[in-house]
């Protein structure tokens, strides 16, 4: 009884929070609700027995995405105020401007509800017990080089997906850099000795933590993405405090760091192709080592990419 109650409450709160986050009159509150939604979703992932994803969601889905949106909001507000000379407390929403708009809202609402109904009808018609690929994955797990099935899928069974995904990450940062110059948080550490002393030992700790997550990912929840997210968090901290400035001045180094995931992954794929005749088909018995190398490179790229996404643009002095 209690688990059902817990699930029911969680689901209800998630749905309600999603609605609130997107339709709150106060945009700022909406963003905060959105971040909270991410945390609750991480709980939902746990209930769905997906601890890998709970980690990723908490760090990336809620944490990083929330931070991105929040900083964008602050930037936009500041600009709105500068432009209009008035506080833009309540963002312009679709509220009751005219009848046509209301009508289309009602129409779209009806459409969305109808869509939801259809989707539910289809989803509930699915077989109650799915076959899934659990059996296949577990049967091949011993050959995969790792013991965590999710990592096995990510870096061996469907490694090609992951290769493209690392590509997407790189592409995202290239696209963002092409669009904007990043904005530097103006922080002076001399005024904040406490923060400085905290960062002095927290940043290395986070880096070690990222490495640990990478290592443990072979057998337990964790891996390059979760580790990368941690690294990204460290980087965001460093950027916020102004510590990362010196690093970012070294453009080529940063770019190499961003691309090393794709490069190592791609080259590994090509070498494997020459070795075994299959794209990303690791030589027998060496899969574990290959995966570790690829993941290590990917970790650096993921961490840098996600962290620099926070900057919202290419580094460069004004």
């Amino acid at each position, binding site marked *: 009884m209690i*688990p059902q109650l817990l*699930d*029911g409450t969680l689901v209800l709160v*998630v749905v309600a929070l*999603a*609605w609130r*986050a*997107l*339709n709150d009159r106060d*945009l700022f509150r*909406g963003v905060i609700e*959105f971040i909270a939604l991410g945390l609750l*979703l991480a709980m939902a992932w746990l209930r*769905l*027995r*997906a601890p890998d994803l709970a980690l*990723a*969601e908490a760090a*990336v*889905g809620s944490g990083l*995405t929330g931070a*991105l*949106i929040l900083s*964008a*909001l602050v930037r*936009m507000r500041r600009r709105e105020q500068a*432009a*209009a000379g008035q506080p833009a407390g309540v*963002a*312009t*929403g*679709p509220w009751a401007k005219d009848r046509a708009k209301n009508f289309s809202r009602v129409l779209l*609402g009806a459409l*969305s509800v109808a*869509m*939801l109904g259809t*989707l*539910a009808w289809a*989803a*509930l018609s*699915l077989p109650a*017990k*799915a076959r*899934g*690929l*659990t059996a296949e*994955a577990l049967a091949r797990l011993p050959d995969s080089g790792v013991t965590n*099935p*999710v990592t*096995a*899928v990510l870096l061996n*069974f469907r490694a090609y*997906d992951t290769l493209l*995904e690392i590509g*997407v990450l790189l592409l995202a940062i290239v*696209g963002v850099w092409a669009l904007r110059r990043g904005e530097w948080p103006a922080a002076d550490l001399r005024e904040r000795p406490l923060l400085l002393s905290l960062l002095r030992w927290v940043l290395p700790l986070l880096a070690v933590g990222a490495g640990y997550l990478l290592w443990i990912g072979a057998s337990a929840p964790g891996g390059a993405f979760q580790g990368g997210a941690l690294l990204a968090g460290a980087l965001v901290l460093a950027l916020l405090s102004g510590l990362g400035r010196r690093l970012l*001045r070294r*453009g080529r180094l940063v770019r190499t760091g961003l691309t090393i995931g794709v490069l190592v992954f791609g080259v590994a794929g090509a070498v494997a192709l020459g070795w075994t005749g299959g794209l990303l088909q690791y030589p027998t018995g060496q899969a574990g080592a290959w995966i570790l190398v690829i993941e290590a490179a990917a970790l650096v790229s993921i961490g840098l990419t996600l962290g620099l996404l926070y900057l919202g*643009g290419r580094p*460069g002095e004004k």
Partner: protein
Amino acid sequence: MPDADPRLYLLAGLALFAIGFYSLVVQTHLLRRIMALNVMGSGVFLAFLALALKAAAPMPDPVPHAMVLTGIVVAVCATGLALALADRVQALEANEETPAPEEPPSAETGSEPEDAG
């Protein structure tokens, strides 16, 4: 603690998808629309994982888990890109009201550090 009922989470995922879609179409503020996309995405992920739980013998299907992890990363990339773009657009609209110089790419590209590649 026994497993959750996958159908419950499946429906929740679909609900998030519908809410996200409705808000995406109805809302006008760029940030809200970007959040709406994220909510839609979360809905899809929820559905994926709920379906993975249906094949839970002896453990949930790892393949959708990997897919969702990929999806989460893609989603954050999308968010980053969309925010940068939205920011440029908003800067542009703010400029149209009061013309203030707002970063044309020309101003600083040359000074990007260590350009010599």
